[in-house]
């Protein structure tokens, strides 16, 4: 297969289309960006494990704040959006523009559902008293998940533009398929970042009889 795909590339010194190479370089740099954000979150969770204090002075524990059902649903939605994106890219390679539109519309809807869940979660946390300013946990959590959410929002916008662009008849041929593939790479990256965030930010909070960070709080809700 790779011979078929490579034969349709414009000649480059690396044998890889420049758009695709640039996107992979960007994703590699974005790995480092998210790597530092995740590290920061984990370090400060270790150093300040007890949670946060709201405006009335009440102490809150992170384990009681999270809603595992909502986060699991969001994760499932994002994974399935990645699957639909893979199908959309495959459809474009085969020149099936209608199939591409159907799949990419699914990705857009799933992306919007994910963003809706995140907005709901942020609103809920805000009403529980967690703000970006009142604790170290609030700062690192909102910055990390907010940055990821921004990436999702950019991805959704990009796919909406591609969807409407496909009706102009200009999204075709090798260049069109490559444009969709590059957008797909970005979308899958957003998915893999969430795979990590889901484990290291959400799931580990539920581990152990006293919580992963040893706050002495039973996990039973």
């Amino acid at each position, binding site marked *: 297969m790779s011979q078929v795909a490579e034969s349709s590339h414009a000649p480059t010194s690396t044998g890889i289309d420049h758009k695709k190479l640039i996107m992979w370089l960007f994703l590699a740099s974005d790995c480092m960006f998210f790597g*530092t954000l995740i590290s920061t979150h984990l370090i400060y969770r270790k150093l300040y494990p*007890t949670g946060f204090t709201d405006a009335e002075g009440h102490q809150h524990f992170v384990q009681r704040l999270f809603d595992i059902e909502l986060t699991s649903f969001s994760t499932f939605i994002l994974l399935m959006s*990645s699957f639909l994106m893979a199908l959309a890219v495959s459809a474009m390679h085969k020149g099936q523009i209608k199939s591409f539109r159907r799949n990419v519309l699914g990705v857009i809807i799933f992306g919007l559902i994910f963003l809706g869940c995140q907005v709901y979660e942020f609103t809920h946390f805000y009403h529980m008293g967690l703000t970006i300013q009142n604790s170290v946990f609030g700062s690192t959590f909102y910055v990390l998940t907010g940055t990821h959410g921004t990436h999702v929002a950019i991805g959704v916008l990009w796919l909406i533009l591609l969807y409407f662009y496909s009706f102009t008849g200009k999204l075709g041929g090798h260049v069109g398929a490559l444009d969709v593939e590059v957008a797909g790479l970005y979308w899958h990256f957003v998915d893999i970042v969430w795979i990590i965030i889901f484990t290291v930010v959400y799931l*580990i909070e539920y581990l152990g009889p006293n919580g992963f960070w040893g706050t002495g709080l039973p996990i039973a809700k």
Partner: protein
Amino acid sequence: MSAPLTKEFLAEEVRRYHHFITLALWLAAITGVEIVLIFIPLPLAVIFTLLCLLSAVKFFAVILWFMHLIYDHRLLFWVFIAGLALAFATFTALLALFHVDRIDTKWFS
């Protein structure tokens, strides 16, 4: 489409299509296992290790198949792994630097 739609090309696309469906089912199943795992009364270290392993499996499954790294030019794989390795090295270095006991107090959290 300038890429030749040969019989071989279409057969490969169909094969990939089936791979994508299988992978999506596996990803959903692994996520389900992760959620169940956190409620199983096993030692913390065991569950934590399992969660990390399952995340890594999902991560590499997506980059290899959904992101086509397994089919594409080898250079792309190494470009991404280089970024990933730097991120992991930064992560490890930071964790080592801040490997101190809890400094939290009830009035400073």
